[in-house]
């Protein structure tokens, strides 16, 4: 479909989708906040995963031709809408909440500034699935390999000083697939719209497993 973009402005890919939808209302895609926070509009733009709302057309299609595809590796519901169930199942497997077996204090569980800093680069994940769906290991074993997004969150809770389930969390990840299927190709790092580094988090989980196992 050809589209003339207004001159003197660099639209975002989501704006292009809106223009296309105005022309053909049957086109389906997800969107919500349009400012890179909700993670709804993760799509594949000229072969690269990203959020349509914060990707300028000039960056996604420097030569003027833009090919939009749904996120690879997940079942397509319609057009650019994918079924994220498998992705969420993997996220659910890593117990994405704080586990603390000590009696709760009167007000809140405190954390030192140093311990809080360890969560930087981890908690910011918006679960857009751009990283996991750019990962060949996730394409091949989406039911067994947790994937970069899930593993980034797994480390977020392993690194949290308020969590007391470290041994159980590590034991759950020790099998040959959940963590160790990562081959370290860093596709996840190159596509993350929040500039996070799941490969580093996976490396830290491996180090924790090694420290515990040896």
């Amino acid at each position, binding site marked *: 479909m050809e589209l003339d973009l207004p001159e003197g402005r660099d639209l975002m890919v989501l704006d292009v989708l809106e223009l296309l939808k105005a022309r053909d209302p049957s086109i389906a895609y997800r969107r919500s906040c349009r400012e890179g926070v909700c993670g709804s509009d993760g799509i594949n733009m000229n072969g690269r995963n990203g959020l349509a709302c914060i990707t300028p057309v000039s960056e996604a299609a420097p030569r003027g031709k833009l090919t939009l595809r749904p996120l690879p590796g997940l079942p397509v519901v319609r057009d650019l809408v994918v079924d994220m169930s498998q992705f969420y199942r993997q996220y659910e497997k890593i117990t994405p909440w704080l586990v603390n077996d000590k009696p709760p204090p009167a007000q809140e569980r405190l954390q030192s500034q140093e311990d809080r800093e360890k969560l930087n680069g981890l908690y910011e994940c918006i679960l857009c699935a751009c990283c996991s769906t750019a990962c060949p290991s996730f394409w091949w074993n989406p039911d067994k390999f947790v994937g970069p997004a899930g593993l980034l969150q797994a480390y977020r809770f392993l690194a949290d000083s308020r969590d007391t389930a470290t041994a159980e969390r590590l*034991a759950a990840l020790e099998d*040959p*697939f959940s963590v160790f299927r990562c081959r370290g190709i860093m596709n996840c790092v190159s596509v993350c719209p929040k500039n996070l580094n799941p490969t580093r988090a996976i490396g830290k989980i491996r180090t924790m497993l090694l420290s515990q196992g*040896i």
Partner: protein
Amino acid sequence: MALVTNITSFGRSGLADFVLQRVSAVVLGLYALCICGFFATTPHVDHAALVGFLDSLTMKAFTTLAVVALGMHAWIGMWTVGTDYVRRHYFGRGHTVYLAVYQLICLGAIFVYVLWPLSVVWRLGGVVP
């Protein structure tokens, strides 16, 4: 409890396989350096020189270690490749049969590749008196 169980991986644990694969790679690297050193420092490499080099008890033990490391390394690698590619998406419901056949072929080949050099090395003294 592990999130995924598998009975055919080498160490039954991702951590064990991860460590064994790296340790065996180091052993194989050292063995390769040792062999390269022999070729670099021996002026006339012939059958007798090779037998003389490999016939010592130290080299026999090192070769045995390297061959066993090769077997472990190969099985962990081939098992990983098989479980990546031989899956239901490509092979349908019977993919576990294909995976079992693939693993048996790999196991047979590795068995031969381990036993053959070991039988050669431990009989070296009998080949050249």
